[in-house]
């Protein structure tokens, strides 16, 4: 019996008539950091949305902690322990920084992450806690998005385009904090444009191309060229 926390099998997702995901299967173990790479429009965000219940797959199964998520509302899935940092941050613009964080803890799952803990990791957020969230700089906003996801004490954290629009130095900071953030036991899937960086932090990787998996395996098992071929489909 493996420790796999999430199992996706033969997933097919459509937007109207357009198919975005063509039969994807993957598993992730407890505590593992999986990086999901792939060019624009490969279907990474769509996969995340399917896991969270924001889009309904046409076929295939998603099992979280051995239990299917089919037919569950996104709210219910969040309660089960999945959280996402969405692409483009998508903070609530009429809420302050602190309110955004508090809302992240809406489901009140028990666990290590509290407001105080988030402020400890991102001290700058405490200084800005009463500002409207969208008045922060891009990097700070990304911190809020991460903090908001952590507040639900998830067992599986989905990070979509973690370093999108961030200055290199901010990215560096976040990546340095990443092990501390993830701590022990939290499984994580990371989507990242910055392939090299993603490979450095992850245990395994999956590369997607046009809705299919084009390459996957141990993060350190492939050369840069092999990965880039899978990435661009050359």
């Amino acid at each position, binding site marked *: 019996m493996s420790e796999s926390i999430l199992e996706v099998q033969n997933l097919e997702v459509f937007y*109207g008539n*357009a198919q975005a995901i063509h039969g994807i299967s993957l598993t992730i173990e407890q505590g593992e950091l999986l990086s999901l790479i792939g060019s*624009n429009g490969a279907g990474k965000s769509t996969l995340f949305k399917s896991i969270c219940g924001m889009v309904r797959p046409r076929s295939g199964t998603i099992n979280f902690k051995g239990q299917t998520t089919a037919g569950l509302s996104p709210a219910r899935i969040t309660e089960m322990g999945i959280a996402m940092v969405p692409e483009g941050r998508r903070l609530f613009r009429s809420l302050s920084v602190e309110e955004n964080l508090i809302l992240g803890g809406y489901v009140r799952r028990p666990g290590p992450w509290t407001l105080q803990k988030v402020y400890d990791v991102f001290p700058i957020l405490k200084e800005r806690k009463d500002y409207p969230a969208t008045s*922060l700089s891009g990097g700070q906003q990304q911190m809020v998005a991460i903090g908001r996801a952590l507040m639900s004490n998830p067992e599986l954290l989905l990070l979509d385009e973690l370093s999108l*629009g961030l200055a290199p130095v901010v990215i560096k900071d976040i990546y340095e904090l990443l092990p501390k953030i993830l701590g022990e036991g939290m499984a994580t899937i990371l989507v990242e*444009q910055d392939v090299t960086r993603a490979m450095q932090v992850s245990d395994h990787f999956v590369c997607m191309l046009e809705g299919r998996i084009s390459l996957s395996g141990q993060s350190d098992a492939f050369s840069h060229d092999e990965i880039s071929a899978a990435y*661009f489909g050359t």
Partner: protein
Amino acid sequence: MTLLDLQDLQKSYGALAVTQNFSMSVEQGDLVGILGPNGAGKTTLFNQITGTVKPDHGEVWFDGEMVTQMDASKRCQMGIARSFQVPHPFVGMTVYENILVGATFGRSSFDPRKQALEIMDKTGMDDKANQLAGSLTLLDRKRLEMARALAADPKLLLLDEIAGGLTDSECVSLLNTIREVHETGVTIIWIEHVVHALMSVAKRLVVVDFGRKVTEGDPETVMNSPEVKSIYMGEDAA
């Protein structure tokens, strides 16, 4: 002759500055590539050139006229056409009708129906003429983006990430189309993350980050600059 001249553009959304002191000029017949990290402000730059977004400060000159406050439709009729990064097809219309919109309302065209047919053939969409645009695959949506823009008979064509998600052979045929269009005298600015595609046609590259122009120059030099390697390619400058 300078076709497009951007002078000291500034744009912010609230506290977020997405275009900062941006100046750039493009000569008639140029083929300029723009690259930069996600969220660098490239698309926003296009929006300011086409008029869907008005800059907070600065001027846009096109074909010798100041167009900063002009409507998007007026600018299109002057000869600026674009494709959208997120394809915006008219989902309730067929492919042909989509292209016909460009041909009918774009820069002077005396027989829009015929022109739309020609463009459709040129971009290889003829076999999907009667298909509803809403039912197209991503790839075809992107092709349609370009076809529709071409139908408007532009002097300046703005392409926003149209090679993403294309296979190699598709990419080659796309590059051929772009070259053909360019040879007919159309000036092109192309935003692209597929660097090798961009490199193979662009005469000049402009790198954008945080809404600022980081470097610009001929493709080889730009791509080899340590700055670009680090901020864009995620490679160590060393």
